């Protein structure tokens, strides 16, 4: 069994999070651009005096598949590297994964990670 660790982080913390994950032994990850908001809400922009509230702010989503035993350490690594202490730092969560297959070889389970 393995776990999927998903983190939504501030875009400017991506490099630090990547380094921390590599240091923790993670060998691959998927990174995508995301947009959303939490308690931070959006921000306002003003064009020729007209104020627009922009709800969704840019974020980065980072996804890592890890063996069960490593999940807690990986979450800590992401939190440690992504944290600035301000509203808008993001979230990290873990979900169980039934099975993983490596496309190149057809391996299943932990050996596919």
């Amino acid at each position, binding site marked *: 069994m393995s776990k999927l660790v998903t983190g939504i982080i501030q875009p400017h913390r991506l490099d630090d999070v990547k380094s921390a994950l590599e240091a923790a032994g993670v060998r691959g990850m998927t990174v995508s651009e995301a947009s959303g908001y939490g308690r931070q809400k959006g921000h306002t922009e*003003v064009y*020729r*005096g*007209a*104020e627009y509230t922009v709800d969704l702010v840019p974020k980065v989503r980072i996804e890592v598949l890890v063996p069960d035993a490593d999940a807690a350490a990986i979450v800590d690594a992401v939190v440690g590297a992504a944290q600035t202490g301000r509203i808008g730092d993001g979230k990290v969560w873990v979900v169980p994964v039934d099975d993983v297959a490596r496309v190149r070889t057809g391996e299943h389970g932990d050996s596919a990670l």
Partner: protein
Amino acid sequence: MDWDTGNAAWMLTSASLVLLMTPGLAFFYGGMVRGKSVLNMMMMSFGAMGVVGVVYVLWGWSMSYGADVAGLFGNPFDQFGLSGTLVADGVPVAGLGNYPQAIDVAFQVTFAIITVALISGALADRTRFSTWLVFAGAWATLVYFPMAHMVWGGGLLSGAETGLAAKLFGVTDGAATVAPIDFAGGTVVHINAGVAALVLALIIGRRKGFGTEPMRPHNLPFVMLGAALLWFGWFGFNAGSAFGADATAGLAWVNTTAATCAAMLGWLLTERIRDGHATSLGAASGVVAGLVAITPAAGALNPVTSLILGAVAGGLSALAVGLKYKLGFDDSLDVVGVHLVSGFWGTIGVGLLGDGVGLFLGGGIRQFVVQLVIAVVAILVSGVLTLVIGLVLQRFMGWRVSHEAEVGGIDLAEHGETGYETLAQATVLGRENKEIRV
């Protein structure tokens, strides 16, 4: 004939510069709309080039500068198709600055084009292209050419003996004692286009979501590129309106830049105080406000009074653009707030700041009164005529695209294209390669 080749070269250059303003305007406006309507916005400017260029050659020049009819317009048949305009009795006809009149035609057609194109800023995202093209030809014919005749062709708003100004303060040596000053088109171009924009915005109605949904400019670098092209082209507009390569042209160039620099700062300062930021859209808008304000005044002010005129224009227009939300009319890209307001200010500003004629420069009140009268008459003429054209087109063609087209994007609905690949969702899915029909 011994032409002044220096003047000829400068005026040919000026005409080319002013023509470039309209594609520049296409970028200025195109960047300000949402990505799904950028092509339609730009096509309204390009479409105006096509239609107005054609009607200008056929009857535009003749209606502007042909034989006078009651001080209101030139006879369209007098020089129809430019007959007798370029060559008469086998020799080239002389223009205003001892160069062939063909160059004056070149210069003037570019003014007609940009004036019509300016109006399109009020009509973003929702206007049928075919109705726009018909409007462009009708409005140029019924409003622009007569206005050009009235102001520049010896008509009602000029300094002619039969004009309004002559009726106000009398006649000296066969011309009005206090002649109106509209150096390069504050009334003919900017007040005229600004009023037309307001009238059409009222006829056509608001965009869906106006005032409630965000309608952010999709490409501010386009807006700044457009403002830069407009500024560059405006040297032809203003310095070219000296009709020669002379001291007046030089003064107009310096005044144009002085007013524009000050207007940009005026706009930025206003929004920094009001909204907290000095924005790129504000800088680009301030540039245009300054260029508009100095247009009627470029030959009549000095560089220092130009700074004052420009700074006030930037501040005024920055405040005026918010009015549409309070009053509820969707002048989408602020043609009223920028062109009508700064055009009006520049026109009456000549009566306050004009060298030797302005109220604050020892000229008394008379020039100010004349300027105010021509500005107000221009507003009335443009307003009434545009209302008639707009309502007739509303009745017989319809102005608006369908609700689905407006929401889904007017580019695809009216032109069968999208400005950006992502809007057609072709990038990731590779949809465009599935089927190619030739």
